[in-house]
């Protein structure tokens, strides 16, 4: 397993694109978060965003797409170049290979996610007081010492890691980068859009409970916790179930098919 890990790590590390993409995760997340924070202003109570923790982590919505690209390319790149045959010849135990890939991809997502979340919260802490989110208006400065903020921050990092695992599973199953990205981003972004058409409150709530993105991102909620469609950790659990199902499907297909 150690050798499998070091092999996968070497393959990913020596690709010049990987570093840029991970940098992209951090840059996109922090930029969108900072932009969203700067675009709101808390001049009247109606205009104030109720949840500044969630607001300052907005970049996750887009940063996750780059995480998905990193994870998808980790396996489809091998299929595109034919490298997969070499890999499987060297490591005939396919489950071990997939597990090693999952570990490497998770590690990268955790590392980039930590930087992205840290940068986003820092940007929020610096920008938001200038937009009127001051303690006087009932908005204390964002701080990781606050257990709710800490839960949101750590949870968002885990969320990005689970997105990476979901993407790896889907990519292993379909073996093509464009298709895999389309399926993953479709799963993530389509459910909330559907919620617009379905205005019946009951259906809307169910949709939010089962969708990988809306359920998973409840981990960022810091206010109105009793009104959430699903509690933060349970929501992350829903995403974990999606990721597990995708990895299982990918792993099974990898074992059953010729490469």
């Amino acid at each position, binding site marked *: 397993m150690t050798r499998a890990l070091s092999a996968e790590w070497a393959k990913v590390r020596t690709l010049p694109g990987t570093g840029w993409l991970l940098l992209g995760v951090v840059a996109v997340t922090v930029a969108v978060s900072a*932009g*969203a924070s700067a*675009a*709101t202003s808390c001049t009247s109570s*109606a205009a104030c965003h109720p949840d500044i923790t969630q*607001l300052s982590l*907005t970049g996750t*919505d*887009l940063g996750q*797409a*780059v995480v*998905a*690209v990193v994870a*998808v*390319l980790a396996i*489809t790149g091998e299929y*595109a170049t034919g490298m997969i045959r070499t890999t499987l010849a060297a490591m005939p135990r396919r489950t071990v290979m997939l597990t090693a890939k999952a570990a490497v991809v998770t590690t990268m997502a955790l590392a980039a996610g930590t930087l992205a979340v840290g940068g986003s919260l820092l940007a929020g802490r610096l920008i938001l007081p200038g937009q009127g989110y001051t303690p006087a208006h009932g908005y204390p400065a964002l701080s990781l010492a606050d257990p709710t903020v800490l839960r949101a921050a750590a949870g968002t990092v885990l969320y990005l890691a689970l997105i990476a695992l979901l993407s790896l599973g889907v990519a292993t199953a379909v073996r*093509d*980068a*464009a*298709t*895999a*990205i*389309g399926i993953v*981003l*479709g799963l993530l*972004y*389509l459910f*909330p*859009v*559907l*919620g*617009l*058409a*379905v*205005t*019946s409150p009951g*259906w809307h709530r169910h949709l939010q409970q089962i969708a990988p993105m809306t359920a998973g991102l409840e981990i960022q909620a810091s206010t109105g916790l009793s009104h959430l469609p699903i509690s933060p950790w349970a929501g992350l659990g829903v995403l974990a179930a999606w990721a597990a199902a995708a990895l299982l499907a990918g792993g099974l297909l990898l074992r059953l098919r010729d490469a």
Partner: protein
Amino acid sequence: MTTATVTPRRPATESAGFGRLLFAEWTKFVTVRGWVIAMIVSALLTVGIGIWAGAGTHGQPCGEILPNGQTVGGACASPPLGPAGEMVTDSFYFVRQSLPGDGTVTARLTALDGSATPGIAGGTSALQSWAKAGIIIKASLRQGSAYAAMMVTGGHGVRMQYDYTHDTAGLPGGVSAAAPRWLRLVRSGDTLTGYDSADGTHWTLVGTARLPGLTTAVQAGIFVTSPDWVTNENASPTLASGVFDHVTVSGSGPGSQWTGQDFGLGAAYNPLSGGYRQTDGFFTVQGSGDIAPAVRNAAGGSSTADAGITGVFAGLIVALVVGTMFITAEYRRGLIRTTLAAAPRRSQVLAAKAIVIAAVTFAAGLAGSAAAVLLGERMLRGSGRVIFPVGGLTEARVIAGSAALLAIAAVFALALGVIMRHGAGPVTATIALLVVPFFFTGPMAVLQGTAADWLLRVTPAAAFAVQQVLPAYPQVSNTYTAQYGYYPLPPWAGLAVLCAWAAAALGLAGFLLCRRDA
């Protein structure tokens, strides 16, 4: 002696060559089973989600949703339709008498203020900028009947409005005892003329309205109304009160009495009730509601007939993937070298590819969105929900526009595929540019106001404007956001923004394709 001239053999004409290129690209498309299946799946997803959206709205209660989440009212009374067939709100406090023929209504307004809203949790007593107090001549007491009115508004000065959608500005500024506003409406047959004045002697013409088919006897009087206070999450009713004096209706029969009436759909729709008090020629009138075209907002209760069009998002993602793969698969397999050897005019290859992918996605999109809209509409009507009426032309524009959106987006993805030559980048980029801006401004509503508007003006997501069915009215304050189906650009301008992105990408792709080794 004659010189034999040898005419060099002309190469196949350019158009015939291009026709063969088109045929070649078409063959490549239809012989890849996965792409054909993907296009069918794209259409089926669009339809399936459309039907599902129609079904998912079953059992939606009518009436207002209060800030505490409680819904007032149960049964779905159909909201009134105005003279032009659009859905309207026709709710105000009316102090009226009958006007049997021609005549003039005059009144002086000395105050217009917001009132406290008893029983509305989280309500506001602030004066709404489109709160209205003034004089009105109305064809009948039927909901949605024709009218013309002169009014003072909370924040937009004197206005003349008629038949719900027409709005003309008069004297600017607010109203107070020191700066009263005189209002006058003159009826002559079916023509009503509005005047305003600051002193009651110097009158200024504001506008003229012709209300076709106005009956002989009409209702005339004074009114006050105050529209919902709309935020992104909810809409709560408000109350305003106006003070009138010098109220006269000339031309009415002798001995006519004033009658006060809370005109509207009843307490199920608006829990606030108005009233009036008459003392020494002063009328104090309190009212809640609006006389305006109906708009979509957080108050919910009504849906547009084309709710099924949401399914286009699913079809769009499939179209983006197939558009990308139509070229990146050639790079991946090395087929691009064969293609370019067979057709050395590279820009023509790109053009043929763009035409084939656009035609295929347009066809799939047209079939999918037409079925989605029509079936979704059937489901909605079956659910007993209130549905905004949508004209046939508008519906056709939404369907054809959505198909065009899919086709242009697929060409955009194809062009990015040529530029990047790998599959992951173009799919991510097009989804990030097309779906995510809509996502930020619509369902998640992370961005609001000008930031959201700009995002939907400059990104390719502007093209979703082609799906807008309800007009935004400047004289109705509302959250006009993508969440409720309102876009900052007109439909075809929005589609043009996407075209510009696709054209720019296609230009760069052509340039790179000709310059680079394959």
